[in-house]
């Protein structure tokens, strides 16, 4: 934990006002940083000798019950050589657009992690090469499930969900994006194009 404390102090010393908070909770060192500097700080933590946080354990987010509190994107870092864990939080004002720089260029493993945060919380990662839903289906229209204002049963009523499920066309299960890979969308018969455009749940895109 000393190592993590030192790293947190080093971040605060190097980036000064970009560090908006630092706490120690349940044995974890947590540093909060401003959204516009987060990529720079994460790159510094990865590349600086003596820090070497070369492993991105997880990217996730927290939406708090209090609607006034910012949504936090959480980066859990680990230095495999130094055996030190550090948690970095980026608070995002919920009245603002939820956007933060992607760290895909620093850690390739951030690809799916950031897609999951986008899927569940609606945070957009600038510079992500392929930001689309990962767990929910492409045409899912109810919003972002892990937001606290999202009800347990979803935004749509049971009857509407049932209607959509029954109207789902199991044949049109390729996304338009997948079809564009094959560049053959234009060659398909008209009725199949319509089904594909409507999507799995008949919702349209």
């Amino acid at each position, binding site marked *: 934990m000393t190592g993590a404390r030192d790293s947190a102090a080093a971040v605060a010393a190097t980036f000064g006002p970009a560090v908006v908070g630092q706490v120690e909770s349940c044995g974890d060192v947590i540093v909060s940083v401003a959204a516009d500097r987060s990529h720079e700080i994460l790159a510094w933590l990865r590349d600086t000798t003596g820090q070497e946080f070369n492993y991105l354990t997880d990217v996730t987010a927290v939406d708090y019950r209090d609607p006034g509190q910012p949504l936090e994107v959480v980066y859990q870092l680990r230095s495999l050589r130094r055996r030190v864990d550090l948690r970095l939080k980026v608070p995002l004002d919920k009245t603002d657009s939820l956007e933060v720089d992607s760290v895909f260029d620093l850690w390739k493993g951030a690809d799916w992690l950031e897609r999951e945060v986008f899927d569940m919380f609606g945070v957009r990662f600038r510079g992500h090469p392929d930001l689309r839903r990962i767990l929910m289906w492409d045409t899912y229209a109810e919003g972002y*499930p892990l937001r606290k204002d999202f009800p347990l049963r979803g935004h749509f009523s049971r009857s509407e969900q049932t209607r959509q499920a029954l109207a789902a066309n199991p044949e049109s299960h390729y996304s338009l994006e997948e079809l564009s890979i094959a560049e053959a969308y234009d060659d398909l*018969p008209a009725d199949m194009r319509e089904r594909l455009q409507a999507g799995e749940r008949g919702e349209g895109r």
Partner: protein
Amino acid sequence: MSTRTVELALATPGLDDAGRPIRVPLGVPLDPAVAGRRETGEEHMLLNIGPQHPATHGVLRLVVELDGEVVQRVIPHVGYLHSGFEKLGEYRHYNQIIPLTDRTDYLSPMANNVCLALAAEKLMGIEITERCQVLRVVACELSRIISHLVWLGTTGIDLGAFTPFLWSFNERETVYNLQEAWTGARLTTSLPRIGGMMADVPLGWEEQLRAFCRNFPNTLR
């Protein structure tokens, strides 16, 4: 015109005079004038595998782009097993979440149970008894063993070796008997509670565990 095609519900018996692939919906009898044309070349095929498929161990769906028999690209769809445990957890108290953790990885349920209990206890600053700690370690290790046995057995099956599957699943059954004697459930154990366990091990359980520990290395050899 692209040189790539999608094979959905369409057959492509060949190319027409302009070099375009001829599309015939499946179920429509083939025009004899079209049949016997030259083969389509340089075409990529988009193929769907899953989410239910005999060759997958679970519900993974892959959309595969093929050039002949060579895979060019795979698009995985991983959400078919997503059950929203985190969202369900928001509406339950900690002990009610434990049955959900059985299902996060049902091949090692006891280890997952313990993880949740540890996290909640860390948050609350609860210290548990030493006997409880030891029993949790035993539970986690048993989970680890049976989880790895499934990997070993099914990978053997995929490679065409059937015998390791039988041996590993036989040993797994032994551990399931232990789990059943302890928790009453073979698969969904829901073993710990926040600050403790649902039950101590029953009488004679340690002897069964020792017998397993004696026999299991021989099976592995």
